[in-house]
């Protein structure tokens, strides 16, 4: 049996049978059939549940005349992402705001949940940032194609026609490198934060690791901001109008 967090053990006790059966139906055979849900997956499910509960609470507390604390926080979050979208994407940014806001809040919650004892950051495994990066890649390419149609490929051709094959190759590699860099940037920062806390914990178990956990909070905020910033930049580049 693999090493499981308490929440993962709870999920596996409750849902191991159906999940393993569903995976087997897709010809995927988990290594431990009694524990098919791994720690990162369980943590992501927990983050989603917590966010849904938080947003339901927020919806119940919305009021025009007496805005509460949660409403202020939600409005300032909306202002923040809205400003970023307007600045980087241009005039038609409202369409993308739900994805950008959801992505930002989700990644921040995933990074911060690792600081609570008995939970670990799902973003400290390579798969979760890769998922976010692939989602962003699919999203901005989809909107690029939807906006430009077949002319989306013109962005990849470069300025001069006879250089188009070379430039196309370079552009494709550069777009794939975006996925890689988004993934590795988020994963490496979260993983390194964990490692550094563990390293100092093994030296001085009392007091000093708290400083590094504080640093980890700062790094989580900055890396979430960078991820969302780059998503907006790629979106802006994909749907840009060359007037």
């Amino acid at each position, binding site marked *: 049996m693999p090493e499981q967090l308490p929440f993962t053990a709870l999920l596996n006790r409750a849902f191991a049978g159906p999940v393993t059966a569903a995976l087997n139906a897709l010809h995927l055979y988990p290594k431990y059939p009694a524990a098919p849900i791994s720690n990162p997956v369980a943590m992501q499910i927990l983050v989603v549940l917590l966010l849904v509960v938080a947003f339901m609470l927020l919806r119940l507390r919305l009021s025009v005349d007496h805005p509460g604390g949660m409403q202020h926080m939600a409005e300032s979050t909306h202002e923040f992402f809205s400003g970023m979208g307007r600045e980087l994407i241009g005039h038609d940014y409202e369409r993308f705001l739900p994805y950008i806001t959801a992505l930002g809040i989700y990644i921040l919650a995933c990074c911060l949940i690792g600081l609570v004892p008995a939970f670990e950051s799902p973003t400290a495994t390579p798969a979760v940032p890769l998922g976010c990066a692939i989602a962003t890649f699919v999203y901005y390419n989809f909107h690029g194609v939807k906006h430009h149609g077949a002319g989306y490929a013109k962005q990849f051709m470069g300025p001069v026609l006879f250089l188009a094959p070379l430039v196309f190759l370079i552009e494709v590699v550069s777009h794939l490198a975006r996925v890689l*860099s988004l993934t*590795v*940037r988020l994963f490496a*920062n979260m*993983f*390194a934060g964990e490692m550094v806390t563990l390293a100092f914990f093994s030296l001085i178990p009392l007091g000093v690791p708290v400083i590094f956990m504080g640093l980890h909070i700062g790094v989580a905020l900055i890396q979430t901001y960078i991820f969302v910033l780059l998503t907006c930049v790629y979106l802006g580049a994909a749907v840009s109008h060359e007037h």
Partner: protein
Amino acid sequence: MRKLLFMLTTLLLAAPAFAQPGGAAAPAGGWNWSFAALGLGFAVGLAALGQSKVAAAVAEGMARNPSARPGIQLALFLGLAFIESLVLFIWVMIFLRAS
């Protein structure tokens, strides 16, 4: 000055006297970690140089125009985070391969 240089050269040439008779053993865990530490030291040093340029520019900018502090602070954090991420890229590669 020349005497000092001669003395230092002689001392350096005498260094092999410290070698153990059994021959130098490979470092524990193989050479991978030694090369990795060397490469990472290089990466961190160069990144520190880059980050110091960013910090210096930010300090000068804030000194010249204190009212522009929020924008300059934002540029500071962005710049530092991107440079740090490059070091972390190479650290992740080494960590995943050289264990």
